[in-house]
């Protein structure tokens, strides 16, 4: 039984369609990431699961039960917001205790639980401080303690790392992941940062225009993107796409190598690669150029090890192993097979 499930979940805001008949099922204990650019509907989807928005159509199931029409507090969920939404006028202790007060729990039990949650997150010494006296990372931990104390079935996180500066972000990411592994609660995590998603998620749902384009593990999404959107959204630099009359050909920059470097038994597909400029990044070199036989404007990128010497301004014979080629329908962008 999946912990969180949505069936044909849809949300209209007036004329605009924010979430388009989304079917999603989580597995128990997994770290599921909703990934996509701004406006793709991931936050709206999360909010409908939380009960902060009413769906226009479709159903939300949590723990096997239908949640439509039920307010957030009855869903046994906890949510961490981008700003952490700590109550600024209360101490950390009162912040964490707030959900327990709302449940009318006895005072001793409240204190017990607060200390338990604070202990788990290592913030016991901050209990009498106010949020504005804490750093970003410490605030995140308070938000997690407040979420944990309700012993929810699902954790919902809405871009909790975006407000931290880059240096803190990595440490906070590790903390968050360790925390989730430790607690083992199903977590749904919204982000627009694909590096974050790839690093943290057990599975990733890539979204755009209100629909899930692909749901899979990071490996599946990276190696076998379901359409051109996923192919270009994931991976930096993105997958190269060459549009032909019958089909679009795609390959990752690291798979685009000099012809001589591809063994014959890998069935190399050859291209004439005119290199315009190169970038030296220490560990790799990136070559930027165009490929003969395809649209002049299409930029193609190759990632080669530093030792390989390629001259700029010249055309070289490059190749991609057959197994590394991906094909897409030029009209719909969807993945199609190699036969054509």
């Amino acid at each position, binding site marked *: 039984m999946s912990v969180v499930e949505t069936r044909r979940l849809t949300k209209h805001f007036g004329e605009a369609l924010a979430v388009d008949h989304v079917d999603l099922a989580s597995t128990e204990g997994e770290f599921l990431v909703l990934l996509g650019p701004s406006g793709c509907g991931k936050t709206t989807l999360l909010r409908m699961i939380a009960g*902060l928005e009413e769906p226009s159509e479709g159903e939300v199931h949590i723990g096997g039960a239908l949640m439509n029409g039920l307010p957030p*507090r009855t869903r046994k969920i906890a949510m961490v*917001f981008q700003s952490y*939404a700590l*109550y600024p*006028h209360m101490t950390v202790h009162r912040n964490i205790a*707030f959900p327990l007060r709302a449940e009318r729990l006895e005072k001793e039990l409240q204190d017990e639980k607060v200390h338990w949650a604070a202990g788990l997150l290592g913030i016991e010494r901050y209990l009498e401080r*106010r949020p504005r006296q804490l750093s970003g990372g410490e605030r995140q931990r308070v938000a997690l303690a407040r979420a944990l104390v*309700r012993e929810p079935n699902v954790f919902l996180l809405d871009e909790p790392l975006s407000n931290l500066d880059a240096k803190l972000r990595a440490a906070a990411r590790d903390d968050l992941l360790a925390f989730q592994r430790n607690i083992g609660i199903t977590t749904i995590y919204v982000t627009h940062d694909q590096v974050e998603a790839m690093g943290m998620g057990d599975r990733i749902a890539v979204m755009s225009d209100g629909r899930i384009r692909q749901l899979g593990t990071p490996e599946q999404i990276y190696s076998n993107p379901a359409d051109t959107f996923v192919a270009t959204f994931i991976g930096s630099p993105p997958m190269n796409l060459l549009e032909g009359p019958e089909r679009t050909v795609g390959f990752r920059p690291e798979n685009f190598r000099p012809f001589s470097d591809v063994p014959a038994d890998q069935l190399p597909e050859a291209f004439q690669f005119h290199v315009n400029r190169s970038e030296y990044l220490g560990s790799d070199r990136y070559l930027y150029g165009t490929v003969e036989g395809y649209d002049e404007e299409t930029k193609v990128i190759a990632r080669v090890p530093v030792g390989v010497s390629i001259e700029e301004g010249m055309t070289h014979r490059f190749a991609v192993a057959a197994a590394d080629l991906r094909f897409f329908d030029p009209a719909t962008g969807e993945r199609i097979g190699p036969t054509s």
Partner: protein
Amino acid sequence: MSETAVEVKAVAPARDRRHFLDNDRFLAIGGMTPAVLYILGLVGIPFVLAVLLAFSDVTVGDPSLDLTGLDTLRQVIADPVFWQSLRNTFVFTLVSNALVVVLATALALILTKQFKGKWLVRFLVLLPWTTPVSLAAITWLWTLDSIFSPIDWVLRAMGLLESNVIWLGKPALALASVITVHTWRIVPLAAVIIMAGMIAIPSEIKDASDIDGARFWRRTFEIEIPLMAPIIGVAVLFGVILTITDMTVVYVLTRGGPPPNSTQVLASWAFFKGIEGGDLAQGAGTALFLLPVLIAVAAFILRFARRREVL
């Protein structure tokens, strides 16, 4: 590298000197000057004059400015009506503004929700404050008329009343009427100010309290109102200033009566003494007592607001 290099042109000296319109200090001083002059000239000078008058014996009959020390102020304090006015001023201000806080907060809560006909409700609710004070008082004068009051008619029709309530004729009722008019007038202003405070609360905090299980009353009293405390303070400050310094409501509604001076306030008493009575010195002296009260109240409320500021 490329054949056609861009030529670097010599920069033509357009403005060698710093133009006076660039000089920030000049602009700052120039910008402030008209306002400062206006205030100094038309508030500062009359203020000094008012103080001087309070220490003189100027009347309409004897307009020469002879300074007489504390005599005038002693006369002012010796008059029992002064003390009654002072007491009334406090009572009106305290009671009205206590009511205003409660009613305006409730009104702000209502007006921040969406519902049909909101525009009309807003319009009607704004009327008490946007109407010129004297005209609002006139509508109340008619509504509380000792013979034709519609309130009395309704009470009579319900069988609760025999003849008439003399709203403005009995001292206790007159006091209540003045308090009602003040409250009625200020609630819209306070509500607007409080609404501004409400909107400043981040919506994520309200969402978080929803998820944490807080229902309407808990969310309103434990989250929203504490976070709005500073701005409720500002609203109260405005309300207090408007009530303490107002003489119009009393003037139009009761003329300070019922006789002899049951609803007199400091502001109206100063007017009667100074303009209608012709004793400018005593008028100024009476009004001067408004100042320490105002400053004390303002300081108190501002300090309260500062300390509660968390957002």
